[in-house]
C-alpha cells in the first residue's frame, strides 16, 4: 500500500447510529427491508447532505460569482468554501488545484481533452490497465483516434493486481506522457500501489492520473504525499449528490492546459477576435456550476470526516473479511480477484447460474447487488467471463445484512443450480 492511503487503525464505527442518518435504509423493497449492497455504483445520502441542499434552496440561493447582492455573495462563499474542503480532504497544496466537474467521467475527459490534445504531442503514449472502468478507457481511445496518441495497456496478474513488470516494460521507451490508472478497482476491489506507480512513471518522464472514484470512499488519500499529478473522484459515491465530481491537478499542469469548454465564468475578457481565460481553476469551469450539488458534496465530506477514515476503513475491512469467509462456504462460488490490498467490493460468479438470475433472486429478498459487466468489459474478457455479480459495502452496511445476503444467495443457488 502506498503513502497517501493511511494504515488502518481499529476504532469501531457506530453503525446503528450511522444508519439513522440514512432515511432510505428504512424503506422496504418487494415487501422486504432494503439491504443495499450497491454502494460502489452509487452510495445513499445522509440527512446531512439532503439538508445542506434543501437549506440552500430554501434559504440562501442565487447564482454565484457574478452577483453583487447578498444572496449571491453568500452562495458564492458556500460554493467556494467547498473547494477549500476538497483541497483539505485530498491534502492538495492549494485550493486552486481543485476543479469541479459533473463526475469522474467528465474529470477524466477534461484531462484527456485538455492535457491530451493541448499538451501531449502525437507519438506519445498513454498507459492504462486491464482493470479500468470504461470511464478510464474510452476517453483515451478517443484521444488516440483524434490526436495520434498511442494507447498501451498494462497487464494485471491472475490475482487481480497490477502487473508492475508489465507497467515497467510499457514505460521503458520513455514515450509515455501519462499513466492513467485506477486507485481501486470497482470490480476486484484491488487497491493499486499508488506510490510505486507514481515513482515508476515519474522516473520514466510520465505524469500520473489516478482514478479515485472508489478509493476516496474507503481510505484517506493524500495527493501531496503521493505526488500524483491528477486525481479524480465523483461525489455520488462519497455519500454526496449526483452531478458533482472533482479533478485535482497540480497547479503548473493546470496552468499549462488549454480550457475544455467555453462560456461564462471561465473567461478573462471576451471580444469576437480574441478571448483570454480566467485563472485556474475557473478556466475549467464554464457556465453556471452545479451550485447546490457542490454544497451537498461539502456536507458529504464533513460527514465522512466526522466519522473518520480510519474507522471507515476498519469497518469495511471487517465486513469484507466476514463476507469472504461466508461466501467461501457456498458451493461453486468464485470470487474475482484476491488482491492483498482491497476495499469493500466483492465480485463473484456462481457455477451454473447467470449473474442476472442471481441478482433478480436476491432482489426478491430485498438485497440490491449489481450484475453485468460493471462498466469494465475488457476486464470481464481478461477474466474469461461474460458477467458477474457484485456486492459492495458502505458505512451503513452491517454484518447482519451480509449474512442475509449470503443466505439469500445460497437459496438462489439451490434454485438455479439443480
Amino acid at each position, binding site marked *: 500500500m502506498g503513502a497517501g492511503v493511511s494504515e488502518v487503525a481499529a476504532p469501531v464505527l457506530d453503525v446503528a447510529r450511522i444508519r439513522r442518518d440514512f432515511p432510505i435504509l428504512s424503506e422496504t423493497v418487494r415487501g422486504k427491508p432494503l439491504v443495499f449492497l450497491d454502494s460502489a455504483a452509487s452510495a445513499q445520502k445522509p440527512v446531512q447532505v439532503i439538508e445542506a441542499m434543501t437549506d440552500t434552496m430554501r434559504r440562501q440561493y442565487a447564482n454565484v460569482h457574478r452577483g453583487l447582492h447578498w444572496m449571491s455573495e453568500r452562495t458564492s462563499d458556500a460554493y467556494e468554501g467547498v473547494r477549500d474542503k476538497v483541497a483539505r480532504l485530498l491534502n492538495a497544496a492549494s485550493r486552486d488545484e481543485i476543479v469541479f466537474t459533473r463526475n469522474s467521467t467528465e474529470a477524466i475527459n477534461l484531462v484527456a481533452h485538455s492535457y491530451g490534445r493541448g499538451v501531449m504531442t502525437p507519438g506519445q503514449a498513454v498507459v492504462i490497465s486491464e482493470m479500468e472502468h470504461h470511464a478510464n478507457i474510452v476517453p483515451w481511445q478517443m484521444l488516440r483516434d483524434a490526436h495520434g496518441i498511442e494507447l498501451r495497456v498494462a497487464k494485471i496478474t491472475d490475482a487481480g493486481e497490477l502487473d508492475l513488470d508489465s507497467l515497467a516494460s510499457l514505460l521503458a521507451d520513455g514515450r509515455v506522457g501519462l499513466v492513467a490508472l485506477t486507485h481501486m478497482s470497482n470490480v476486484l476491489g484491488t487497491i493499486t500501489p499508488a506510490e510505486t506507480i507514481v515513482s515508476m512513471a515519474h522516473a520514466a518522464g510520465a505524469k500520473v492520473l489516478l482514478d479515485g472514484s472508489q478509493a476516496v470512499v474507503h481510505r484517506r488519500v493524500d495527493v501531496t504525499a503521493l505526488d500524483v499529478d491528477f486525481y479524480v473522484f465523483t461525489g455520488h459515491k462519497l455519500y454526496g449528490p449526483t452531478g458533482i465530481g472533482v479533478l485535482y491537478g497540480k497547479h503548473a499542469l493546470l496552468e499549462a492546459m488549454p480550457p475544455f469548454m467555453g462560456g461564462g465564468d471561465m473567461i478573462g475578457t471576451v471580444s469576437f477576435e480574441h478571448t483570454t481565460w480566467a485563472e485556474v481553476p475557473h478556466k475549467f469551469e464554464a457556465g453556471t456550476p452545479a451550485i447546490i450539488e457542490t454544497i451537498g458534496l461539502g456536507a458529504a465530506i464533513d460527514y465522512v470526516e466526522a466519522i473518520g477514515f480510519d474507522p471507515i476503513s476498519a469497518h469495511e475491512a471487517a465486513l469484507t473479511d466476514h463476507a469472504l469467509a461466508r461466501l467461501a462456504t457456498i458451493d461453486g462460488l468464485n470470487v474475482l480477484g484476491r488482491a492483498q490490498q482491497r476495499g469493500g467490493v466483492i465480485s463473484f460468479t456462481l457455477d451454473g447460474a447467470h449473474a442476472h438470475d442471481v441478482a433478480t433472486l436476491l*432482489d*426478491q429478498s430485498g438485497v440490491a447487488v449489481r450484475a453485468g459487466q460493471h462498466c469494465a468489459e475488457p476486464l470481464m474478457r481478461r477474466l474469461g467471463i461474460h458477467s458477474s455479480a457484485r456486492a459492495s459495502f458502505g458505512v451503513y452496511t452491517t454484518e447482519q445484512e451480509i449474512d442475509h445476503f449470503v443466505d439469500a444467495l445460497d437459496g438462489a443457488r439451490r434454485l438455479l443450480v439443480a
Partner: protein
Amino acid sequence: MSTDATTLYQDWVLARARAPLHAGRIAGGVTGVAENRSCGDSVRFWLKRQDGRVVAARHETEGCAICQASADLIAGLAAGLNEDRLATLWEEACGVLESGVAPAGRQGDAGMLLGVFAGVAEYRARHRCAMLPYQAYEQAARAG
C-alpha cells in the same frame, strides 16, 4: 402484484433453460444474432426454409435462464407456426410484458412463452433478457 421466486423461476422455465430442446446449429441455414451489450448475453438463431416455410430452427444462447428459456421456446414455435402467427404471438407476449397477466388456458410452447413474460413483467431491467432471442430470430428470418 408481487411475484415470488417460484412464479418467475418456475421449474419448467429452469428445466427448459438447463436442457433446451432446440439448441444447436443448422448447417446451411440462415442465421441472425442479437446481443445485450450491457451484460454480454448473446443469441444466435439458425433457420432452415423449404418452399418459403421455416421447417427447422435452432439457437445458440449465452445468457441467463430467462433468455435461455425464451430462446428455446421461440425456436420451438418458429418451426411450428408460420411467420405471421409467430409475429402475432410475439405482439401478445409483449403486451403481457406490460400487463403482467398471461391469458388463461394457453397450451404448449406458446403458453409457456406467455408465462415467462408474465413472470418477468415486473422486473423491467430483465425485459431485454426475455426479448433478446426474438431479435435474433427476426434477423435470421429477414436474412432468409
